[in-house]
């Protein structure tokens, strides 16, 4: 017994096209391709095929910036804005450790799927707020950002407050702070990384970073990565 996917696969190989129009299942096939067996399979699996096509359409409903990291729960959701990698999957372990009633919703920037990316923090914040407010039109808003995402989270919170919305939580996790790039702070980072490099784990980490850098250079070219 074939399931809907297997049947569609067989039909596709024979250049048979199926689609839904006005709640009606339509079929277009090269003349003579549909034998009695296939016709019967089509007729008996009509509902299944329609369900399959509808689910497939839902998957293609266009790029969505809202990523349901942990959608369930009655509390106001925490919106996790994107960080330096552009994706919000780093929040998954944290989301799993939060209260069962605490939803966590990720917000992705445009550009990950080959569309034009946004290039300023302000523009990114405006975009992500649009997505957040479409998902939840009224506050209070809980905003979190990890690493570089902290800067974005801060800007998102500022713009929300400027728009008269309540921001009940702004969580910056391991984020850069204004004095981070000061001389003393950079010196400390450098010294601690030297100390780290002397430990066995540090050496492995160093190798891993070098590998990651090589891979990144292979993708974007060395010019795009500023030298450290």
């Amino acid at each position, binding site marked *: 017994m074939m399931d809907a*996917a297997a049947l569609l696969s067989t039909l596709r190989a024979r250049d048979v096209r199926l689609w839904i129009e006005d709640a009606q299942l339509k079929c277009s096939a090269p*003349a003579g391709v549909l034998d009695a067996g296939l016709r019967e399979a089509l007729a008996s699996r009509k509902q299944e095929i329609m369900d399959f096509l509808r689910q497939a*359409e839902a*998957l*293609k409903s266009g790029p969505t910036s809202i990523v349901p990291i942990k959608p369930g729960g009655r509390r106001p959701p925490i919106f996790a804005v994107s960080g330096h990698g552009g994706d919000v999957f780093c929040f998954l372990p944290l989301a799993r450790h939060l209260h069962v009633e605490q939803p966590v919703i990720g917000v992705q920037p445009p550009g*990950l799927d080959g569309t034009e990316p946004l290039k300023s923090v302000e523009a990114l914040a405006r975009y992500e707020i649009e997505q957040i407010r479409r998902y939840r039109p009224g506050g209070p808003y809980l905003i979190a950002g990890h690493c570089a995402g902290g800067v974005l989270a801060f800007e998102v919170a500022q713009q929300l407050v400027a728009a008269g919305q309540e921001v009940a939580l702004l969580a910056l996790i391991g984020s850069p702070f204004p004095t981070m790039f000061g001389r003393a702070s950079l010196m400390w980072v450098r010294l601690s990384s030297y100390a780290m490099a002397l430990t066995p784990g540090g050496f492995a980490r160093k190798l891993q970073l070098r590998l990651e850098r090589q891979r990144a250079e292979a993708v974007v070219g060395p010019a795009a990565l500023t030298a450290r």
Partner: protein
Amino acid sequence: MTAVGLVARLRTVFDINVELATLFERPTIAELSEAIDMLVLTDHRFASRSPSGAREEFDL
């Protein structure tokens, strides 16, 4: 592999666009493969291989 990397690989290998949200809604390999099937089998960009040949069209 990161999620973004997985989406990129799926695009290269299957020539489909899987949304990141789909990875969350379908966290197991079985569920994801179902989504891949759906996207691949309903992709009609490379339509007819015999465009001149006669076709029959009908409702079911």
